[in-house]
């Protein structure tokens, strides 16, 4: 590959007034031997851009170093074909002159270092080779309930083939056997027959030429990657296990729904005392039976115990939900469903009194209309309070309910003929064994090179269900990682579909508690993500969060020591391994974060434009003054590209000074930092290393889930290296930084610089 380097230095936006640009040009020429090195006073203007374009055409420049503003600015202007031109942006404005005193030697040195780092990177960077392939684009929908049916029909509507797998003999899922639901469009103040629309949807799915349906079936295994998943489908009935069918699909919508919370665990609320104490689901079944599956509109609700018409009934809300000992979350649908059931009682048994015992009534949005209507009904009593006792009087065949802390002070006693427990939703996300760590075994503890390679510990790794639904043949576990309480939900507020298994999107009430109205929308969103994933992947482009990135890591396998750290630490389970522990990388599952590259102790993993070697050469290009004066301390900063780097930009926009001792290298994620860089930097004479990256823990902000946490964990391993070099461990520090923490940066940096000064200069300086 030709390496025709062109360095273009902008002197606009006060760069020329703050720096000696002529000197910059000269040092850039001396250090980097470019084909072209010039300055221009308005590089992003038409004249400046044309200059670059002409050099590309005439002088065959293919490695551009644009030393001007931040890579986040003017991207539309400095926009060259990434497959043939490498564009390296050097941030002389936000990261140099806007945060440093003008016409100062240290500011000048800062600018020189940044240009040399940019040039070193540009020289070593190769062009991406996108992995363009013909891929299978069929959508596998697991689950034939409301969400699954909608996912299937909506995929077919955009022309995609669908494989729909339903474990039961009929489609329609949970609601199918029930009676009524609340209205699915404004004003949401009525009840409608549950099968309204559902039978039609089922028949549309069943008659669609694009949808292949497997009923009575389940997933035996899923292997492969987006665009090339191999799915084994087997009969749900184990006795009939002979036949396994193989299907190839492109992406997966997991719409496995929910099950009611186990009723027998509600014995503390009297479940089991009498048949007249039943769950909301059992009440629905009773309605369905009494209405002869919806054939009859009017019927009398009768007691299960003796068949007499119910005259008083109480509902206990949050039966199991919002309870640390049962389901810690709110099941979201039970308030509306109890109000609906109350309305049906009042319609069919007009003399009946209905009590709804609740903590908070949750009828969000326009569902409030339904609640308001129920409040107007004189036969419905809303009782805010906590149930303190349930008893059954066998003689009178009555159920006693004691409620304390009611709105009107004090306790009340109710005697009712029927009691309904509004039990919650449990996601069907596979059988989870809580308290068990993911079964990750530490690999070969020493590497071939003799470098220490301590076992990696899965950091904040989510619980992965043992088996049941998708049965992924993935190294990191069989099911979707659980975010909380078994819901494989996204932890990103801005990106609700971001699952941790590329190409697999949970939808509906398996993802979070939701009703049928929202499940329909959710199914559509998941389908969009499913087809988007295969479309982007087939073009060789990454999906979220590095959408459109065409690079991906290469594994130099002959040098692999089978330590398994990459396969363990990949946040997205993209890497499988063979029996020996050699990684089997799946580029279609990869999100391009570089966590594997950071993990690898023998540095065999690299991207075309981002690698241990490229960053090492950037570090090597730094000028480290030997004279130990205050201004000569050198601090290397690894900054997360998405949050810390922009925070530095914003600081610049606000023209707030920052120590000129720092040299910033943006990284895809702190998790991509390879420990060798610390050694490279410290042996070069860098005095301290500061990591600026995202928050970790339960509310992690790292877009690669656990990159920043892994960086923190790996720093533990670093101590040994530092000890070997006889260096203080305080020379490396990680700070969790949010985008908006820019005002804290001066203090963070100054504090660290002072710490390093107190330790004294790196003794390796000048070696």
């Amino acid at each position, binding site marked *: 590959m030709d390496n025709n380097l062109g360095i273009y230095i902008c002197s606009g936006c006060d760069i020329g007034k703050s720096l000696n640009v002529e000197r910059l040009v000269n040092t850039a020429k001396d250090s980097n031997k470019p084909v072209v090195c010039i300055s221009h006073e308005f590089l992003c203007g038409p004249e400046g851009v044309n200059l670059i374009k002409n050099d590309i055409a005439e002088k065959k420049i293919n490695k551009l170093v644009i030393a001007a503003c931040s890579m986040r600015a003017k991207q539309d202007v400095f926009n060259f074909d990434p497959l043939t031109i490498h564009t390296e942006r050097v941030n002389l404005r936000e990261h140099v002159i806007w945060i440093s005193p003008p016409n100062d030697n240290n500011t000048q040195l800062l600018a020189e270092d940044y240009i040399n780092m940019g040039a070193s990177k540009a020289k070593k960077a190769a062009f991406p080779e996108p992995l363009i392939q013909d891929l299978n684009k069929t959508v596998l929908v697991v689950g034939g309930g409301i969400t699954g049916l909608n996912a299937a029909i909506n995929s077919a509507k955009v022309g995609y083939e669908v494989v729909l797998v339903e474990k039961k003999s009929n489609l329609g899922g949970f609601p199918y056997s029930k009676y009524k639901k609340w209205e699915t469009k404004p*004003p949401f103040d009525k009840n409608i027959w549950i099968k309204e629309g559902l039978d039609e949807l089922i028949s549309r799915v069943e008659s669609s030429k694009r949808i292949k349906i497997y009923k009575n079936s389940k997933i035996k295994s899923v292997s492969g990657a987006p665009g090339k998943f191999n799915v084994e489908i087997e009969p749900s009935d184990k006795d009939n296990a002979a036949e396994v069918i193989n299907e190839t699909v492109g992406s997966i919508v997991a719409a496995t729904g929910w099950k009611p919370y186990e009723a027998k665990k509600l014995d503390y609320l009297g479940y089991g005392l009498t048949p007249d104490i039943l769950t909301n689901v059992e009440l629905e079944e009773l309605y369905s039976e009494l209405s002869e599956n919806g054939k009859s509109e009017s019927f009398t609700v009768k007691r299960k115990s003796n068949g007499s018409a119910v005259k008083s009934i109480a509902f206990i809300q949050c039966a199991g939900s919002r309870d640390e000992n049962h389901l810690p979350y709110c099941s979201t649908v039970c308030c509306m469903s109890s109000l609906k059931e109350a309305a049906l009682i009042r319609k069919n048994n007009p003399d009946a009194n209905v009590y709804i015992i609740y903590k908070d009534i949750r009828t*969000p949005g326009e569902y409030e209309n339904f609640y308001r209507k129920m409040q107007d009904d004189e036969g419905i009593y809303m009782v805010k309070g906590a149930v303190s006792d349930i008893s059954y009087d066998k003689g009178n065949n009555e159920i006693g309910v004691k409620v304390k802390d009611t709105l009107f002070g004090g306790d009340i006693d109710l005697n009712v003929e029927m009691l309904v427990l509004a039990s919650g939703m449990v996601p069907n996300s596979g059988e989870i064994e809580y308290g068990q760590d993911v079964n990750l075994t530490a690999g070969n503890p020493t590497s071939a090179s003799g470098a220490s390679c301590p076992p990696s510990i899965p950091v904040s790794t989510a619980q992965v269900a043992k088996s049941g639904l998708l049965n992924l043949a993935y190294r990191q576990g069989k099911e979707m990682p659980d975010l909380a309480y078994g819901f494989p939900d996204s932890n990103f507020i801005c990106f609700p579909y971001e699952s941790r298994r590329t190409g697999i999107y949970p939808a509906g009430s398996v993802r979070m508690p939701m009703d049928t109205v929202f499940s329909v929308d959710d199914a*559509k969103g998941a389908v969009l993500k499913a087809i988007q994933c295969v479309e982007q992947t087939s073009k060789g482009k990454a999906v979220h969060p590095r959408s459109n990135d065409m690079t991906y890591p290469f594994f130099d396998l002959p040098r692999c020591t089978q330590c398994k750290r990459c396969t363990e630490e990949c946040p997205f389970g993209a890497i499988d391994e063979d029996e020996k522990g050699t990684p089997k990388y799946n580029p279609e599952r990869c999100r391009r974060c570089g966590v594997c590259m950071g993990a690898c102790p023998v540095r065999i993993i690299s991207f075309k434009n981002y690698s241990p070697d490229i960053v090492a050469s950037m570090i090597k290009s730094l000028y480290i003054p030997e004279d130990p004066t205050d201004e000569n301390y050198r601090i290397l900063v690894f900054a997360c590209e998405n949050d810390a780097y922009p925070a530095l930009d914003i600081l610049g926009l606000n023209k707030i000074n920052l120590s000129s001792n720092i040299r910033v290298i943006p990284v895809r994620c702190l998790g991509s930092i390879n420990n060798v860089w610390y050694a490279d930097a410290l042996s070069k004479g860098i005095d301290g290393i500061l990591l600026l990256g995202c928050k970790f823990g339960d509310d992690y902000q790292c877009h690669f889930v656990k990159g920043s946490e892994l960086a923190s964990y790996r720093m533990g391993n670093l101590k040994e290296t530092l000890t070997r070099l006889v260096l203080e461990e305080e020379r490396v520090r990680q700070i969790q930084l949010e985008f908006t923490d820019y005002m804290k940066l001066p203090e963070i940096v100054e504090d660290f610089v002072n710490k390093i000064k107190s330790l004294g200069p790196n003794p390796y300086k000048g070696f």
Partner: protein
Amino acid sequence: MSELNNENPVLIIGGGHSGVSAALEITEAVNKKVYIVEKKSYIGGRVLQMYKYFPKLCPPFCGFEINTKRIKSSADDNINFLVSSVVEEINKEKDGTGYIVKIRQKPQYINDNCTVCGECAKVCPEDRPNDFNYGMDTTKAIYMPALSTFPLKYSVDDNYCKFSSCKKCEEVCSYDAINLNAKENIIELKVSDIIFATGWKPYNVEKLENLGFGKFRNVITNVMMERLAADNGPTGGKIVRPSDNKEVTNVAFIQCAGSRNENHLPYCSAICCMASLKQALYLRDKNPASSPTIFYIDLRTPGRYENFLNKAQIDKNIKFNKGVVGKISEDHATGDLLLDVEDMLSGKKNKFRAEMVVLAAGMYPNIKDDLKEIKIGGDIKIDIDENGFIFNENYEGGIFSAGVAKFPLDVYMSGQSATSAALSVIQHNAKL
């Protein structure tokens, strides 16, 4: 992907979180152009004015940064913006293939040459109230509108700029980026589909006369609280009250300010409980001596948001009072507020003194009023309900909604609805 049968772009009205999400989800799935029409001079919408999101207490900018990167790296110039623009007319295309839309774009005084060097604002002599901070501070008449402005350039407020009688900014700009003689543009687009992603505004709580907003300076709204807490806000992130800039400790949050009230907003705005819990938590974090009290009817924290409620309830300095605030009056001597509270748990009427009151103003869908300003062809079906939400989409006509234009939703659910709307658009154009 099968081919699309309509090459015209999609019109997305509103460049907030929902509109931008819908644009990205469409263009990353199919080769289709979109036009985002945004009233303000920047993309990002109301969420950029938030200090932190619930339940993670993370800043909105980190997701926005990813979205702007997605826009910048998108292929084929498929994502287009018309900022400072409003839709004036929508008519059906005669051949039935979509709509002809007339858009009015305010004069673009600043062109793409702008490098945000900031020299213009240094010489600008005029101040304007800063709408980004709900008028709690000022900027120059030429200004950077938001923390993470996209497209990255300055704006001119034509209500405050003196134009030809000043021109100082034009003179100082080295990049020929300012033209104060710029004229407005009328743009006509043929579009295949329309997504309403028009968002919301806080309910005008001055209408709740008993609560004293507009009369008493220390009664503020939840959205103003976000700006007070923000480091880039009018107080640099110090939560102080407007009357005397005193750091507040005893703050009353009044839930359902307008919402769940048939005379105001009959619906539940769905986000205000979580928002007030968030604000109480960050107030506690910023000022450990603080003791917020939340006056509520029901605490609505669905799904795993329950966790967030638990987090607030564990803090004994956050008080919960199920009660209705009947009236607020001011103690003129101190600027404190006196609340008449009917405690629903005890039935007693109590007085409560607070240094500052935060009204949890409900979400009012913008489209309810905006639709009145747009001339819409009589044969176009836009099913807007009595509260101003477009819940029922027009699948045959290719008219969809996302975010709070559809239903009272939080950021997370707005993203869901935008992704769903993106699929609707593709379905509407799929050549099968």
